[in-house]
């Protein structure tokens, strides 16, 4: 009996392993009845924690819609810029919807779903009293930033600021308000929404011309990009543009109208 059990268990385990190796991730997600999505929790109003401790925002709406379309439960995992791609390739999450810019280097690591679902650029948030006027004014000044942002290197090489990079936005805002840096280098989308919605930024401005426009992508593991899972995600994003779902959710979350979303809507209509 003991040996029979061992053999049965062993073959069952083997079947399971082989089964997983052959099936694609879309099947796995449906079989598990759950999709795990990595989202931001400090990027209001794209992904943030409400006062009740719930995750909310535009990207959480998108994640919810993905789960609904697949007919599965949704689990949200908070990620930051410096760990989200590692989480995805290690299998801790199935999908990234976390304000991630799409570029050549990153395409070698994760499967960037086309079409892009959003677009942002680079700017700084600075106190009006610092009187910054153009990018060159950053030369030699202490500028706060977020570890792992794609534009840190480019801006440092072009304009020569001394970057002071922290792990999360709360640390950066604290350092900026304490005078540890003269500006915060970040996405124009976030800066615009913060200045518009939050009292604490009343004496702050976004002084520069937004640079380096960058399209955002949701991402699946690289090996899934051309498989059924990647294709399904691509269909979903296309549909978001086509039906105007993104424009509607963008407005519902209180974000200023995005020319990129309008353009994509016209294109797929």
């Amino acid at each position, binding site marked *: 009996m003991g040996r029979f059990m061992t053999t049965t268990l062993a073959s069952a385990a083997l079947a399971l392993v082989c089964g997983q190796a052959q099936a694609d991730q879309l099947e796995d997600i449906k079989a598990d009845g759950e999709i795990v999505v990595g989202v931001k929790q400090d990027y209001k109003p794209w992904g943030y924690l409400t006062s009740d401790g719930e995750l909310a925002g535009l990207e959480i709406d998108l994640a919810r819609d993905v789960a609904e379309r697949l007919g599965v439960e949704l689990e949200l995992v908070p990620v930051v810029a410096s760990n989200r791609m590692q989480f995805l390739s290690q299998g801790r999450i199935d999908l990234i919807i976390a304000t991630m810019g799409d570029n050549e*280097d990153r395409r070698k690591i994760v499967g960037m779903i086309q079409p892009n679902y959003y677009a942002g650029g680079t700017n700084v948030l600075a106190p009006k*009293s610092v009187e910054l006027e153009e990018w060159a004014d950053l030369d030699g000044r202490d500028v706060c930033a977020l*570890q*792992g942002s794609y534009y840190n*290197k480019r801006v440092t090489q072009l304009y020569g600021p001394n970057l002071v990079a922290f792990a999360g936005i709360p*640390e950066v805002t604290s*350092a900026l308000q304490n005078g540890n840096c003269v500006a915060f280098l970040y996405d124009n989308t976030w800066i615009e929404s913060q200045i518009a919605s939050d009292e604490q930024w009343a004496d702050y401005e976004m002084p520069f011309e937004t640079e380096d426009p960058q399209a955002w992508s949701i991402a699946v593991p690289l090996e899934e990009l051309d498989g059924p899972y990647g294709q399904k995600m691509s269909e979903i994003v296309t549909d978001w543009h086509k039906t105007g779902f993104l424009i509607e959710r963008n407005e519902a979350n209180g974000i200023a109208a995005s020319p990129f979303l309008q353009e994509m809507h016209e294109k797929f209509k």
Partner: protein
Amino acid sequence: MDSTSLIEWLRPDWFFDLAVVSDEYNRGRYLAGLWMTIQLSVISIVLSLIVGAVGAAAQGAQSRTLRALVGFFVAFFRNTPPLVQLYFFYFAIGTVLQITGDNGRPVPLVSNFGWAIISLSLFAGALNVEIFRAGIEAVPKSTVEAAEALGYKRLQIYKDIVLPLAVRISLPALGTNLVNLVKTTTLAYAIAVPELLYVAAQIWSEDLNVQEMMNVLLLSYVAIVGVLVWVLHHWEKKLRIPGYGR
């Protein structure tokens, strides 16, 4: 085999292909990070030794208030995680210790590097107090009494008799603590002091070479700690009194 192909053969390609060797921008940042880690380590080691020696002396003082103060200091820094201390100094005390600049903006009095040095020195210093105290208590009472009989004053006994012996007894434990201190400098990453871990993280999030940078980082620390251990070992050997202790 002619000489050029021999050199070619000896040349370890993987080394020259490393992002911190081949790319000039990354190389500069890496070396600056290495230098920052060395500065943090050396300054904190020196200050923590001073804190330890003064603290241990104060713990042997007659004033009860002074002893209680040192006890509180040691308890505070030994019982809280160094990362929490660092955040506390930088984000809590740093907001109070500031002046208002010309344009109405706050100007911090202590930089992030300054807070890292203060926090690391006090943390390791608190542990050094305990290590030195253990060393002092291990100095035989009879030795101190003999010094008293010879007319030595309290401070003289501490400086010329107790401390030299106590330092020798404390050295192994002190070595462990100082090695730990060097490794703890990586926490300065959290308040954006551009030390080795910080620059490595910057490089790997831009070049996406996490694995390579992890190896570089690990070997860098093996080398830095290796030098420190060698110095301490050398020191221990030099200070050895034949017939005393081992």
